[in-house]
Protein backbone atom coordinates (compact mmCIF):
# COMPACT_ATOMS: atom_id res chain seq x y z
CA UNK A 1 0.00 0.00 0.00
CA UNK A 2 1.12 3.54 -0.76
CA UNK A 3 0.14 6.20 1.75
CA UNK A 4 0.01 9.78 0.54
CA UNK A 5 1.77 12.01 3.05
CA UNK A 6 1.70 15.08 0.81
CA UNK A 7 -0.25 15.05 -2.47
CA UNK A 8 1.80 17.50 -4.54
CA UNK A 9 0.23 20.10 -6.78
CA UNK A 10 -1.86 17.75 -8.90
CA UNK A 11 -1.15 14.05 -8.70
CA UNK A 12 -3.55 11.72 -10.48
CA UNK A 13 -3.81 8.05 -11.38
CA UNK A 14 -3.34 7.69 -15.14
CA UNK A 15 -2.92 4.89 -17.66
CA UNK A 16 -3.19 4.81 -21.45
CA UNK A 17 -6.68 6.35 -21.41
CA UNK A 18 -10.02 5.37 -22.94
CA UNK A 19 -11.51 5.19 -26.41
CA UNK A 20 -15.12 6.24 -25.97
CA UNK A 21 -15.07 9.72 -27.46
CA UNK A 22 -18.30 8.85 -29.23
CA UNK A 23 -20.03 8.96 -25.82
CA UNK A 24 -18.66 12.43 -25.19
CA UNK A 25 -15.99 11.07 -22.87
CA UNK A 26 -12.48 12.53 -23.13
CA UNK A 27 -9.55 10.22 -23.87
CA UNK A 28 -7.63 10.89 -20.65
CA UNK A 29 -4.38 9.04 -20.00
CA UNK A 30 -0.89 10.17 -19.06
CA UNK A 31 -0.07 13.49 -20.74
CA UNK A 32 3.47 12.27 -21.56
CA UNK A 33 2.78 8.84 -23.04
CA UNK A 34 6.49 8.21 -23.68
CA UNK A 35 7.31 8.67 -19.99
CA UNK A 36 4.38 6.40 -19.10
CA UNK A 37 5.58 3.62 -21.41
CA UNK A 38 9.22 3.80 -20.31
CA UNK A 39 8.39 3.96 -16.59
CA UNK A 40 6.19 0.89 -16.97
CA UNK A 41 8.78 -0.99 -19.02
CA UNK A 42 11.44 -0.31 -16.37
CA UNK A 43 9.44 -2.18 -13.73
CA UNK A 44 8.24 -4.96 -16.04
CA UNK A 45 4.68 -3.68 -16.52
CA UNK A 46 2.54 -3.66 -19.65
CA UNK A 47 2.83 -0.26 -21.40
CA UNK A 48 -0.67 0.76 -20.38
CA UNK A 49 -0.44 -0.06 -16.67
CA UNK A 50 -1.69 2.63 -14.31
CA UNK A 51 0.68 4.79 -12.30
CA UNK A 52 0.83 8.28 -10.84
CA UNK A 53 1.21 11.39 -12.93
CA UNK A 54 2.45 14.41 -11.06
CA UNK A 55 2.55 18.02 -12.17
CA UNK A 56 5.13 20.73 -11.38
CA UNK A 57 5.38 19.69 -7.73
CA UNK A 58 5.36 16.00 -6.80
CA UNK A 59 3.97 14.00 -3.89
CA UNK A 60 5.51 12.50 -0.77
CA UNK A 61 4.59 8.84 -0.50
CA UNK A 62 5.21 6.23 2.16
CA UNK A 63 5.48 2.65 1.01
CA UNK A 64 3.87 0.10 3.32
CA UNK A 65 5.19 -2.89 1.38
CA UNK A 66 8.28 -3.63 -0.67
CA UNK A 67 7.87 -2.34 -4.20
CA UNK A 68 9.73 -1.75 -7.41
CA UNK A 69 9.30 1.84 -8.61
CA UNK A 70 10.42 4.02 -11.48
CA UNK A 71 9.89 7.69 -12.23
CA UNK A 72 10.21 9.03 -15.78
CA UNK A 73 9.53 12.47 -17.19
CA UNK A 74 10.57 15.98 -16.25
CA UNK A 75 13.69 16.12 -14.02
CA UNK A 76 11.91 16.34 -10.66
CA UNK A 77 14.05 16.30 -7.53
CA UNK A 78 13.27 13.12 -5.64
CA UNK A 79 14.62 11.49 -2.51
CA UNK A 80 14.11 8.14 -0.84
CA UNK A 81 14.49 8.49 2.93
CA UNK A 82 16.56 11.57 2.24
CA UNK A 83 18.92 9.94 -0.27
CA UNK A 84 18.74 10.96 -3.93
CA UNK A 85 16.24 8.85 -5.90
CA UNK A 86 17.32 8.45 -9.51
CA UNK A 87 14.84 9.00 -12.32
CA UNK A 88 14.76 6.86 -15.49
CA UNK A 89 15.62 3.60 -13.75
CA UNK A 90 13.93 0.93 -11.64
CA UNK A 91 14.53 1.22 -7.91
CA UNK A 92 13.66 -1.26 -5.18
CA UNK A 93 11.89 0.43 -2.29
CA UNK A 94 11.38 -1.27 1.06
CA UNK A 95 8.34 -1.21 3.26
CA UNK A 96 8.44 1.85 5.51
CA UNK A 97 10.51 4.00 3.18
CA UNK A 98 9.36 7.43 2.03
CA UNK A 99 9.69 8.75 -1.49
CA UNK A 100 9.59 12.55 -1.56
CA UNK A 101 9.24 14.24 -4.95
CA UNK A 102 9.57 18.02 -4.92
CA UNK A 103 9.65 20.33 -7.88
CA UNK A 104 11.20 20.50 -11.31
CA UNK A 105 12.76 23.50 -12.98
CA UNK A 106 12.15 22.10 -16.46
CA UNK A 107 9.05 20.53 -17.97
CA UNK A 108 5.85 19.86 -16.12
CA UNK A 109 5.09 16.19 -15.54
CA UNK A 110 6.50 12.84 -14.59
CA UNK A 111 5.02 9.36 -14.29
CA UNK A 112 5.63 6.99 -11.42
CA UNK A 113 5.19 3.31 -12.19
CA UNK A 114 4.85 0.56 -9.58
CA UNK A 115 5.64 -3.00 -10.56
CA UNK A 116 2.22 -4.61 -10.99
CA UNK A 117 0.35 -1.39 -11.74
CA UNK A 118 -1.86 0.75 -9.51
CA UNK A 119 -5.47 -0.11 -8.81
CA UNK A 120 -8.31 2.38 -9.12
CA UNK A 121 -11.84 2.95 -10.34
CA UNK A 122 -12.14 1.59 -13.86
CA UNK A 123 -14.46 3.44 -16.22
CA UNK A 124 -14.89 2.38 -19.83
CA UNK A 125 -11.78 0.24 -19.82
CA UNK A 126 -9.40 2.68 -18.15
CA UNK A 127 -8.64 3.75 -14.61
CA UNK A 128 -7.35 7.15 -15.69
CA UNK A 129 -8.64 9.98 -13.55
CA UNK A 130 -10.97 12.37 -15.37
CA UNK A 131 -10.76 15.41 -13.11
CA UNK A 132 -13.50 17.39 -14.81
CA UNK A 133 -15.84 14.41 -14.96
CA UNK A 134 -14.82 13.35 -11.44
CA UNK A 135 -14.50 9.67 -12.28
CA UNK A 136 -11.77 7.06 -12.61
CA UNK A 137 -8.61 6.54 -10.57
CA UNK A 138 -8.85 7.68 -6.96
CA UNK A 139 -12.50 8.76 -6.63
CA UNK A 140 -12.20 10.85 -9.78
CA UNK A 141 -9.94 13.41 -8.17
CA UNK A 142 -6.33 14.34 -7.58
CA UNK A 143 -4.64 12.65 -4.63
CA UNK A 144 -5.13 14.03 -1.14
CA UNK A 145 -3.13 13.63 2.00
CA UNK A 146 -4.11 10.40 3.68
CA UNK A 147 -5.12 8.57 0.49
CA UNK A 148 -4.10 4.95 0.33
CA UNK A 149 -3.36 3.35 -3.01
CA UNK A 150 -2.95 -0.31 -3.74
CA UNK A 151 -1.34 -2.14 -6.61
CA UNK A 152 -1.61 -5.56 -8.16
CA UNK A 153 1.38 -7.50 -6.89
CA UNK A 154 3.62 -9.29 -9.38
CA UNK A 155 6.37 -11.74 -8.43
CA UNK A 156 9.30 -9.78 -7.00
CA UNK A 157 12.07 -9.12 -9.48
CA UNK A 158 15.56 -7.75 -9.47
CA UNK A 159 15.60 -4.32 -11.08
CA UNK A 160 17.64 -4.10 -14.25
CA UNK A 161 20.74 -1.94 -14.01
CA UNK A 162 19.64 -0.25 -17.20
CA UNK A 163 18.66 3.37 -17.36
CA UNK A 164 16.78 5.05 -20.17
CA UNK A 165 18.95 6.74 -22.77
CA UNK A 166 18.59 10.51 -23.04
CA UNK A 167 17.58 10.22 -26.71
CA UNK A 168 14.40 8.34 -25.76
CA UNK A 169 13.24 10.88 -23.21
CA UNK A 170 10.61 13.45 -24.07
CA UNK A 171 12.21 16.86 -24.61
CA UNK A 172 11.34 19.13 -21.72
CA UNK A 173 13.54 22.12 -22.49
CA UNK A 174 12.18 25.31 -24.01
CA UNK A 175 12.07 26.81 -26.54
CA UNK A 176 9.79 24.05 -27.81
CA UNK A 177 9.70 23.50 -31.53
CA UNK A 178 6.38 21.80 -32.28
CA UNK A 179 5.87 20.24 -35.68
CA UNK A 180 2.40 20.76 -37.10
CA UNK A 181 0.21 19.89 -40.03
CA UNK A 182 -2.18 22.52 -41.39
CA UNK A 183 -5.90 21.85 -41.73
CA UNK A 184 -8.37 23.39 -44.20
CA UNK A 185 -8.98 26.10 -41.54
CA UNK A 186 -5.41 27.32 -42.06
CA UNK A 187 -5.78 30.39 -44.27
CA UNK A 188 -2.57 31.97 -45.60
CA UNK A 189 -3.05 34.93 -43.21
CA UNK A 190 -3.51 32.64 -40.25
CA UNK A 191 -0.47 30.55 -41.16
CA UNK A 192 1.50 33.74 -41.50
CA UNK A 193 0.62 34.88 -38.00
CA UNK A 194 0.94 31.49 -36.34
CA UNK A 195 4.22 30.42 -37.90
CA UNK A 196 5.97 33.76 -37.81
CA UNK A 197 6.17 34.29 -34.07
CA UNK A 198 7.03 32.47 -30.86
CA UNK A 199 4.19 32.00 -28.37
CA UNK A 200 4.43 31.84 -24.61
CA UNK A 201 2.64 29.21 -22.51
CA UNK A 202 0.22 31.01 -20.21
CA UNK A 203 -0.68 30.00 -16.66
CA UNK A 204 -3.85 28.44 -18.11
CA UNK A 205 -2.23 25.09 -18.68
CA UNK A 206 -3.87 21.91 -17.43
CA UNK A 207 -4.73 18.41 -18.60
CA UNK A 208 -7.48 19.77 -20.88
CA UNK A 209 -5.37 22.25 -22.76
CA UNK A 210 -2.55 24.74 -22.82
CA UNK A 211 -3.37 28.34 -23.70
CA UNK A 212 -0.78 30.48 -25.40
CA UNK A 213 -0.51 34.19 -24.70
CA UNK A 214 0.01 35.96 -28.02
CA UNK A 215 -3.09 36.65 -30.07
CA UNK A 216 -3.65 35.96 -33.73
CA UNK A 217 -6.53 37.29 -35.84
CA UNK A 218 -9.08 34.53 -35.32
CA UNK A 219 -11.90 34.04 -37.78
CA UNK A 220 -15.26 34.00 -36.02
CA UNK A 221 -18.18 31.92 -37.23
CA UNK A 222 -20.97 31.58 -34.65
CA UNK A 223 -22.88 29.20 -36.93
CA UNK A 224 -20.04 26.68 -36.99
CA UNK A 225 -21.18 23.21 -35.93
CA UNK A 226 -19.15 21.30 -33.35
CA UNK A 227 -16.93 18.59 -34.82
CA UNK A 228 -14.81 15.90 -33.17
CA UNK A 229 -11.45 16.92 -31.72
CA UNK A 230 -8.29 14.90 -32.22
CA UNK A 231 -5.15 14.80 -30.05
CA UNK A 232 -2.82 17.72 -30.60
CA UNK A 233 -5.41 19.93 -32.24
CA UNK A 234 -4.80 23.66 -31.94
CA UNK A 235 -8.04 25.55 -31.35
CA UNK A 236 -8.46 29.22 -32.06
CA UNK A 237 -11.20 30.78 -29.94
CA UNK A 238 -12.52 34.26 -30.84
CA UNK A 239 -10.04 36.00 -28.53
CA UNK A 240 -7.24 34.70 -30.78
CA UNK A 241 -5.19 32.99 -28.07
CA UNK A 242 -4.48 29.46 -29.35
CA UNK A 243 -5.26 26.42 -27.21
CA UNK A 244 -3.27 23.18 -27.57
CA UNK A 245 -5.58 20.30 -26.72
CA UNK A 246 -4.35 17.76 -24.17
CA UNK A 247 -5.79 14.35 -23.17
CA UNK A 248 -8.67 15.67 -21.04
CA UNK A 249 -9.96 18.04 -23.74
CA UNK A 250 -13.64 17.83 -24.62
CA UNK A 251 -14.47 15.44 -27.42
CA UNK A 252 -16.00 18.02 -29.76
CA UNK A 253 -15.27 21.66 -30.42
CA UNK A 254 -16.79 24.52 -32.37
CA UNK A 255 -13.77 26.78 -32.90
CA UNK A 256 -11.53 26.91 -35.96
CA UNK A 257 -8.60 24.50 -35.69
CA UNK A 258 -5.94 25.58 -38.17
CA UNK A 259 -3.10 23.29 -37.04
CA UNK A 260 -2.57 19.83 -35.55
CA UNK A 261 0.60 18.88 -33.67
CA UNK A 262 2.11 15.71 -35.16
CA UNK A 263 1.79 12.48 -33.15
CA UNK A 264 5.53 12.32 -32.47
CA UNK A 265 5.36 15.64 -30.58
CA UNK A 266 2.27 14.84 -28.49
CA UNK A 267 4.26 13.71 -25.40
CA UNK A 268 5.97 17.09 -25.45
CA UNK A 269 2.63 18.87 -25.02
CA UNK A 270 2.41 17.27 -21.59
CA UNK A 271 5.70 18.91 -20.65
CA UNK A 272 4.82 22.50 -21.56
CA UNK A 273 5.05 24.70 -18.52
CA UNK A 274 3.85 28.28 -17.99
CA UNK A 275 6.41 30.70 -19.35
CA UNK A 276 7.89 28.26 -21.89
CA UNK A 277 8.31 29.56 -25.43
CA UNK A 278 6.71 27.60 -28.26
CA UNK A 279 7.11 27.90 -32.01
CA UNK A 280 5.31 25.98 -34.72
CA UNK A 281 6.88 24.52 -37.81
CA UNK A 282 4.86 23.05 -40.65
CA UNK A 283 6.01 19.64 -41.87
CA UNK A 284 4.77 17.18 -44.44
CA UNK A 285 2.68 14.13 -43.65
CA UNK A 286 5.61 11.93 -44.71
CA UNK A 287 7.89 13.76 -42.27
CA UNK A 288 5.35 13.31 -39.47
CA UNK A 289 5.09 9.59 -40.10
CA UNK A 290 8.85 9.13 -40.38
CA UNK A 291 9.43 11.03 -37.13
CA UNK A 292 6.87 8.89 -35.31
CA UNK A 293 8.33 5.68 -36.69
CA UNK A 294 11.84 6.65 -35.61
CA UNK A 295 10.59 7.53 -32.15
CA UNK A 296 8.58 4.34 -31.90
CA UNK A 297 11.56 2.19 -32.95
CA UNK A 298 13.55 3.56 -30.02
CA UNK A 299 10.74 3.08 -27.53
CA UNK A 300 10.08 -0.47 -28.70
CA UNK A 301 13.76 -1.41 -28.50
CA UNK A 302 13.87 -0.24 -24.90
CA UNK A 303 10.59 -2.00 -24.10
CA UNK A 304 11.78 -5.23 -25.74
CA UNK A 305 15.11 -5.18 -23.89
CA UNK A 306 13.37 -4.67 -20.56
CA UNK A 307 10.78 -7.38 -21.32
CA UNK A 308 13.68 -9.71 -21.93
CA UNK A 309 15.14 -8.80 -18.53
CA UNK A 310 11.87 -9.58 -16.82
CA UNK A 311 11.50 -12.80 -18.83
CA UNK A 312 8.30 -12.00 -20.63
Amino acid at each position, binding site marked *: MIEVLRPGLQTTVQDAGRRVRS*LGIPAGGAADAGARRLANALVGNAPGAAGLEFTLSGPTLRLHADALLSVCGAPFDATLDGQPFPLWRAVTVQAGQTLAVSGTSLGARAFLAVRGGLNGQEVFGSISTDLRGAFGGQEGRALRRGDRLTWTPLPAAQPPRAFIDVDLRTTVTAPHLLHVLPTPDATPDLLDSMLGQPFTVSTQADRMGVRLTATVPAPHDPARVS*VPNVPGLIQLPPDGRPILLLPDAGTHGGYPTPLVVVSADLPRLGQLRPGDRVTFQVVTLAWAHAALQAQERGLRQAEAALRLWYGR
Partner: protein
Amino acid sequence: MSGPTFMLLGDAALVVGTSLARELHADLRARPLPGVRESVPALNVLTVLFDPLHPDCNALEDALRARLAGLHPRAQGGGRTLVVPVTFGTDVGPDLAWCAAHTQRTEAEFIAALCGLTLEVAFLGFTPGFAFLTGLPQELRMPRLAAPRERVPPGSVALGGPWAGVYPRATPGGWRIVGHTAMKFFDLSQPEPVPWQPGDRVRFEALP
Protein backbone atom coordinates in the same frame (compact mmCIF):
# COMPACT_ATOMS: atom_id res chain seq x y z
CA MET B 1 -26.97 12.27 -51.96
CA SER B 2 -23.58 13.70 -52.89
CA GLY B 3 -20.56 11.44 -52.48
CA PRO B 4 -18.55 11.31 -49.30
CA THR B 5 -15.61 13.65 -48.74
CA PHE B 6 -12.33 12.65 -47.05
CA MET B 7 -9.92 14.99 -45.31
CA LEU B 8 -6.87 14.22 -43.22
CA LEU B 9 -6.76 15.96 -39.85
CA GLY B 10 -3.19 15.73 -38.62
CA ASP B 11 -1.30 12.47 -39.10
CA ALA B 12 -3.71 10.17 -37.28
CA ALA B 13 -7.26 11.05 -38.27
CA LEU B 14 -9.41 10.99 -41.37
CA VAL B 15 -12.55 13.12 -41.40
CA VAL B 16 -15.32 11.62 -43.50
CA GLY B 17 -18.06 13.99 -44.59
CA THR B 18 -21.20 11.94 -45.17
CA SER B 19 -24.88 11.99 -44.36
CA LEU B 20 -24.33 8.37 -43.29
CA ALA B 21 -21.91 9.31 -40.47
CA ARG B 22 -24.00 7.62 -37.79
CA GLU B 23 -24.54 4.47 -39.85
CA LEU B 24 -20.82 4.26 -40.69
CA HIS B 25 -19.94 4.68 -37.01
CA ALA B 26 -22.26 1.81 -36.06
CA ASP B 27 -20.84 -0.33 -38.87
CA LEU B 28 -17.24 0.29 -37.77
CA ARG B 29 -18.14 -0.65 -34.21
CA ALA B 30 -19.76 -3.85 -35.37
CA ARG B 31 -17.03 -4.73 -37.86
CA PRO B 32 -13.80 -2.91 -36.92
CA LEU B 33 -11.36 -2.04 -39.68
CA PRO B 34 -7.72 -2.91 -38.98
CA GLY B 35 -5.72 0.10 -37.85
CA VAL B 36 -8.78 2.11 -36.83
CA ARG B 37 -8.67 3.02 -33.14
CA GLU B 38 -12.07 4.63 -32.80
CA SER B 39 -14.49 6.78 -34.71
CA VAL B 40 -16.43 9.79 -33.50
CA PRO B 41 -19.58 11.07 -35.16
CA ALA B 42 -20.92 14.61 -35.40
CA LEU B 43 -23.48 16.12 -37.74
CA ASN B 44 -22.77 14.62 -41.19
CA VAL B 45 -19.18 14.00 -40.10
CA LEU B 46 -17.36 10.92 -38.88
CA THR B 47 -13.82 11.41 -37.62
CA VAL B 48 -11.86 8.17 -37.90
CA LEU B 49 -8.83 7.99 -35.62
CA PHE B 50 -6.27 5.56 -36.98
CA ASP B 51 -2.92 4.18 -35.85
CA PRO B 52 -0.38 6.63 -37.29
CA LEU B 53 2.37 3.99 -37.21
CA HIS B 54 0.83 2.04 -40.05
CA PRO B 55 -0.73 4.74 -42.14
CA ASP B 56 -2.11 3.67 -45.45
CA CYS B 57 -4.52 6.52 -45.81
CA ASN B 58 -5.49 5.57 -49.34
CA ALA B 59 -6.34 2.02 -48.32
CA LEU B 60 -8.32 3.32 -45.37
CA GLU B 61 -10.21 5.72 -47.58
CA ASP B 62 -10.97 2.91 -50.03
CA ALA B 63 -12.18 0.66 -47.23
CA LEU B 64 -14.43 3.39 -45.85
CA ARG B 65 -15.81 4.12 -49.33
CA ALA B 66 -16.61 0.44 -49.73
CA ARG B 67 -18.36 0.36 -46.36
CA LEU B 68 -20.36 3.47 -47.20
CA ALA B 69 -21.47 2.00 -50.52
CA GLY B 70 -23.14 -0.83 -48.65
CA LEU B 71 -24.91 1.35 -46.09
CA HIS B 72 -28.40 2.77 -46.21
CA PRO B 73 -29.88 5.57 -44.14
CA ARG B 74 -31.29 4.10 -40.97
CA ALA B 75 -35.05 3.77 -41.32
CA GLN B 76 -37.18 6.00 -39.19
CA GLY B 77 -38.25 4.33 -36.00
CA GLY B 78 -35.13 2.19 -35.66
CA GLY B 79 -33.91 3.64 -32.39
CA ARG B 80 -35.42 3.57 -28.94
CA THR B 81 -37.64 6.31 -27.57
CA LEU B 82 -36.71 7.98 -24.31
CA VAL B 83 -39.25 10.03 -22.42
CA VAL B 84 -37.51 12.70 -20.38
CA PRO B 85 -39.64 14.11 -17.54
CA VAL B 86 -39.04 17.85 -17.26
CA THR B 87 -40.01 20.40 -14.65
CA PHE B 88 -40.69 23.65 -16.47
CA GLY B 89 -40.85 26.97 -14.67
CA THR B 90 -38.87 30.14 -14.24
CA ASP B 91 -37.19 28.94 -11.04
CA VAL B 92 -35.47 26.04 -12.86
CA GLY B 93 -35.74 27.48 -16.37
CA PRO B 94 -34.52 31.07 -16.15
CA ASP B 95 -34.94 31.59 -19.92
CA LEU B 96 -38.41 30.04 -20.23
CA ALA B 97 -40.26 33.37 -20.23
CA TRP B 98 -37.80 34.84 -22.73
CA CYS B 99 -38.17 31.84 -25.07
CA ALA B 100 -41.96 31.88 -24.86
CA ALA B 101 -42.03 35.60 -25.65
CA HIS B 102 -39.51 35.11 -28.46
CA THR B 103 -41.90 32.62 -30.08
CA GLN B 104 -44.94 34.81 -29.33
CA ARG B 105 -46.50 32.10 -27.21
CA THR B 106 -47.59 31.87 -23.63
CA GLU B 107 -45.32 29.76 -21.45
CA ALA B 108 -47.93 26.99 -21.44
CA GLU B 109 -48.15 27.07 -25.23
CA PHE B 110 -44.38 27.03 -25.54
CA ILE B 111 -44.07 24.04 -23.21
CA ALA B 112 -46.82 22.22 -25.11
CA ALA B 113 -45.07 22.89 -28.42
CA LEU B 114 -41.73 21.60 -27.11
CA CYS B 115 -43.26 18.51 -25.53
CA GLY B 116 -45.21 17.78 -28.70
CA LEU B 117 -41.99 17.19 -30.64
CA THR B 118 -40.11 13.99 -31.23
CA LEU B 119 -36.44 14.90 -31.14
CA GLU B 120 -33.54 12.67 -32.12
CA VAL B 121 -30.05 12.14 -30.70
CA ALA B 122 -27.79 13.34 -33.50
CA PHE B 123 -24.50 12.73 -31.69
CA LEU B 124 -22.89 12.86 -28.26
CA GLY B 125 -20.05 15.14 -27.27
CA PHE B 126 -19.03 18.27 -25.35
CA THR B 127 -19.15 16.49 -21.98
CA PRO B 128 -19.82 12.84 -20.99
CA GLY B 129 -23.43 11.94 -21.79
CA PHE B 130 -24.30 15.24 -23.45
CA ALA B 131 -26.44 14.67 -26.54
CA PHE B 132 -27.12 17.06 -29.38
CA LEU B 133 -30.85 16.65 -30.08
CA THR B 134 -32.18 17.55 -33.53
CA GLY B 135 -35.73 18.05 -34.71
CA LEU B 136 -36.57 21.56 -33.51
CA PRO B 137 -38.78 23.38 -36.02
CA GLN B 138 -37.54 26.80 -37.11
CA GLU B 139 -39.79 28.70 -34.71
CA LEU B 140 -38.42 26.85 -31.66
CA ARG B 141 -34.77 27.45 -32.51
CA MET B 142 -33.42 29.83 -29.92
CA PRO B 143 -30.44 32.13 -30.36
CA ARG B 144 -27.64 31.32 -27.93
CA LEU B 145 -26.92 33.73 -25.09
CA ALA B 146 -24.57 36.57 -26.01
CA ALA B 147 -22.39 35.66 -23.00
CA PRO B 148 -22.42 32.05 -21.79
CA ARG B 149 -23.30 31.36 -18.16
CA GLU B 150 -20.31 30.30 -16.13
CA ARG B 151 -22.27 27.55 -14.46
CA VAL B 152 -25.31 25.76 -15.77
CA PRO B 153 -26.87 23.50 -13.10
CA PRO B 154 -26.87 19.76 -13.85
CA GLY B 155 -30.13 18.52 -15.34
CA SER B 156 -30.82 21.81 -17.13
CA VAL B 157 -32.91 21.37 -20.28
CA ALA B 158 -31.77 23.91 -22.82
CA LEU B 159 -32.16 25.12 -26.40
CA GLY B 160 -29.36 26.57 -28.55
CA GLY B 161 -29.51 27.22 -32.27
CA PRO B 162 -30.80 24.11 -34.06
CA TRP B 163 -30.21 21.96 -30.98
CA ALA B 164 -31.89 20.94 -27.76
CA GLY B 165 -29.99 19.25 -24.94
CA VAL B 166 -29.69 18.37 -21.29
CA TYR B 167 -26.57 19.35 -19.35
CA PRO B 168 -25.51 16.14 -17.52
CA ARG B 169 -23.45 18.08 -15.01
CA ALA B 170 -22.52 21.61 -14.05
CA THR B 171 -20.60 23.25 -16.89
CA PRO B 172 -20.43 26.64 -18.52
CA GLY B 173 -23.09 26.94 -21.19
CA GLY B 174 -24.58 29.40 -23.63
CA TRP B 175 -27.93 27.78 -24.39
CA ARG B 176 -31.33 29.00 -23.16
CA ILE B 177 -32.43 27.04 -20.10
CA VAL B 178 -36.15 26.27 -20.03
CA GLY B 179 -36.46 23.53 -17.43
CA HIS B 180 -34.88 20.81 -15.35
CA THR B 181 -34.89 17.01 -15.39
CA ALA B 182 -33.85 14.66 -12.62
CA MET B 183 -32.93 12.05 -15.25
CA LYS B 184 -29.21 11.18 -15.27
CA PHE B 185 -27.36 11.01 -18.57
CA PHE B 186 -23.99 10.01 -17.15
CA ASP B 187 -24.36 7.69 -14.18
CA LEU B 188 -21.57 5.22 -13.56
CA SER B 189 -23.71 3.30 -11.06
CA GLN B 190 -25.93 2.19 -13.96
CA PRO B 191 -25.18 -0.77 -16.23
CA GLU B 192 -25.55 1.63 -19.15
CA PRO B 193 -23.89 4.82 -17.83
CA VAL B 194 -24.90 6.82 -20.91
CA PRO B 195 -28.57 5.96 -21.53
CA TRP B 196 -28.94 7.33 -25.05
CA GLN B 197 -27.12 6.96 -28.30
CA PRO B 198 -27.26 8.45 -31.77
CA GLY B 199 -30.52 7.54 -33.47
CA ASP B 200 -32.59 7.33 -30.30
CA ARG B 201 -35.73 9.43 -30.24
CA VAL B 202 -36.47 11.71 -27.32
CA ARG B 203 -39.66 13.31 -26.02
CA PHE B 204 -39.85 15.83 -23.21
CA GLU B 205 -42.77 15.30 -20.86
CA ALA B 206 -43.90 18.18 -18.65
CA LEU B 207 -44.18 17.28 -14.98
CA PRO B 208 -47.04 18.96 -13.20
